[in-house]
């Protein structure tokens, strides 16, 4: 590794941290602007002016906003995400299991979706403008165009109700055997795969087609390489940066954008956790989940940037 790469990578990471801090301010400010009052929400009908005032005092709601922000930030940095107001449970502890479940689901969806999308993209380029290309593009676009809840319910109808292969509700619990766990997430993982497939496949196709015009692709053809070797050996390595970018965006979506799918399959992940607590106006939980989602998004994009830098031979091997 040479110094220009290290410098660029360090820049990206520093920028990412700065961005995350800015987002933490936004999240905090946003939840402050929201109408409603946690104390009121907790006490509900039984609220008296005195009990409201007491609870506010107890929760620190009377401090100025910036004091509460730094208090919160300090906690986050030391791993203390606060206590859920609605249940009184420690947020960090309850999120841990949920985050693990979400990552587990995202991981298996990604393992299937990413290689499949890239392979389909390569095949589409190989047979570009022919019927194979059109079929792949058509199916991929159709699967993306359907709303994810529709795909989810279709899967449930066929695989759970009609043929009874997979469970309709993806209940998972601690200590669940791996095989059962995989069976439980089969349907939500399939739904997620179908949702993200087209985007990555179309982008792979476009990025490779873009470099297919290059003189070095012609050189490769004139060496007698087969059409697929030309794409794989000469076009793909030069299209890698945009492909990584779109893969990372979709990976981020698999983690932070799964709310609907998790709700459909009643899967105990981050999305459901967030939705539950939004309805309860549980501000600390919403803040914590929002911050984690932002961190995931930013880290994946940093990884994409770094991968694009490392994939560039001009930066890897300076003159």
């Amino acid at each position: 590794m040479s110094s220009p790469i290290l410098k660029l990578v360090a820049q990206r990471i520093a920028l990412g941290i700065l961005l995350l801090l800015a987002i933490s301010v936004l999240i905090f400010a946003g939840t402050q602007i929201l109408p409603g009052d946690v104390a009121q929400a907790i006490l509900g009908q039984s609220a008296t002016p005195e009990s409201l005032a007491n609870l506010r005092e107890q929760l620190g709601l009377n401090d100025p906003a910036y004091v509460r922000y730094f208090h919160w930030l300090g906690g986050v940095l030391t791993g203390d995400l606060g206590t859920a107001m609605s249940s009184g449970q420690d947020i960090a502890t309850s999120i841990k299991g949920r985050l693990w479940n979400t990552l587990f689901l995202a991981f298996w969806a990604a393992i299937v979706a990413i290689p499949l999308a890239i392979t389909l993209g390569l095949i589409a380029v190989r047979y570009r403008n022919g019927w194979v290309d059109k079929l792949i593009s058509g199916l991929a676009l159709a699967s993306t165009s359907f709303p994810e809840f529709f795909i989810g319910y279709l899967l449930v109808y066929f695989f759970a109700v009609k043929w009874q292969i997979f469970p309709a509700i993806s209940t998972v619990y601690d200590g669940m055997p791996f095989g059962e766990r995989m069976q439980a997430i089969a349907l939500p993982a399939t739904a997620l795969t179908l949702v993200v497939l087209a985007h990555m496949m179309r982008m792979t196709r476009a990025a490779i087609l873009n470099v297919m015009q290059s003189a070095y692709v012609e050189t490769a053809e004139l060496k007698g390489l087969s059409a697929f070797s030309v794409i794989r050996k000469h076009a793909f390595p030069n299209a890698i940066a945009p492909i990584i970018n779109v893969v990372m965006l979709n990976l981020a979506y698999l983690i932070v954008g799964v709310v609907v799918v998790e709700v459909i399959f009643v899967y105990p992940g981050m999305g459901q956790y967030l939705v539950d607590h939004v309805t309860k106006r549980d501000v600390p939980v919403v803040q914590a989940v929002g911050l984690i989602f932002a961190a995931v998004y930013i880290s994946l994009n940093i990884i994409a940037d770094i991968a694009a830098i490392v994939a560039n031979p001009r930066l890897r091997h300076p003159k």
Partner: protein
Amino acid sequence: MADGKANSTPLLDIRNLRIEATVYPPGEAPKTITLVHDVSLTLEKGKVLGLIGESGAGKSTIGLSSMGYGRGGVRITGGEVILNGRDILKGGKDGFRKLRGREVCYVAQSAAAAFNPAHKLMDQVVEATLLHGTATRAEAEKRAIALFKKLSLPNPETIGDRFPHQVSGGQLQRVMTAMALCSEPDLIVFDEPTTALDVTTQIDVLAAIKDAIRDTHVAALYITHDLAVVAQVSDEIMVLRHGRLVEWGGTRQIIKEPRQEYTNALVSVHEIEHQEQNPGATPFLSVKNVTAAYGGGQVKVLKNVSVDIYPGQTLAVVGESGSGKSTLARAITGLLPPEQGSVVFDGRTLGNRLADRPKEDLRQLQMIYQMADVAMNPRQTVGTIIGRPLEFYFGIRGRERDRRVAELLDEIEMGKGFVDRYPAELSGGQKQRVCIARSLAAKPKLIICDEVTSALDPLVANGILKLLLNLQQHEKVAYLFITHDLATVKSIADSIAVMYRGEVVRYGSKSKVLTPPFDAYTDLLLSSVPEMEIGWLEKAIKGRRMASAGN
């Protein structure tokens, strides 16, 4: 044609080759156009045939047909391509794949673009050899290193470990030649292999290619638009125009006794007689000790440059790429504010930055660029493009504007019918003429011409030069003429500044600059310009006093 081939079967025998393509003109039905009309040629083993002609002559198309390849939807629709005794057009896709990179190899115009930036040079050089299984990797690499040596590349043992961007353009072109030779083919198609190089680099690459062809006994189709270049390497020359054969004969016959009018025009191009004007008493524009840099002063590209331009005269600025020619133009126009020094116009100092100059100063300095098609808005008509300076500088509108536009079109020898055309509907030469008319519309004192003829075919370029000289006589406009082509300089300049690495190394009237004794760099530059003379290359290489920078 070319006698004495009856006693052996030729390596390549192309008979009545017809190549077509489908074009899709906007708003019209697709139509089929014929690019190559029944061209036949034969090539013996170990011989070099030069294919020469202007763009659109079908040179590359014919060259690539020997590999069964058609660029962008081009189809071979008739004739036979007989290579080593068999018609390759009958072999189908697999047949093409087997001969490409094994029997026939290709050297492209721009090696910088033709090498894959993601792979090391060695991997690319031996790729075809390994693919066709003619050698093991170790053998192929050994062969490649021997070829690198033969092509006098620096560090032949290790240059293969480098990536394309780590090697200069002239070196890449030689690596590409090594790549073609590595699989020991019977035929190599050289497609303008030196056109993208500086003139001083071109001569080295040319010599390397010539030696390699001689020592390996490979046959070659050498495609170029430069007759002087092809005369150095070819045994025979075929002149093509609009996809048809014009003339085919031995090299000496073609350049010394051309039989066709068109060949004669190609041979005698560039012979414009231009009487040098004496500099007047006072220059109207003086560049005084200008130093300019990019990257916040980090990369100095102009060092203490001073030149004068006299009314109605032409100062030619010559040098290789990277010598600072275009940067000088950017400093004069204010696009790149100089770090030191100043530009004096009509006795007063011009603002350094473009934003500091009043409209009147902007009007006096106009520019014409190398790439006429990207210098015009593709969605504006010729009338709008030429009329724009009239509106902007003089506020001329309506009928008066249309009258002036028609006058200007007349001056650039294009008729009224062009007013409503779009740039895409013009030829390369016509586009450049429109750019000239646009700069003239502002009635400037100085037009900066930045490589305005470099992208054009020789005959078209010649027409543009003649037009520029005529306009100078009528309009009394001065030119700052930036070019790397010394033949152009001889045809148009009154005074010359030779630039090398950001400095003016030689400056004065044309006759003074082009008269010996020369400094080392000017000598190199002058001696590198190919002359239409058999044996010039060897003489020039022997007589050189300094090595060119591109190596």
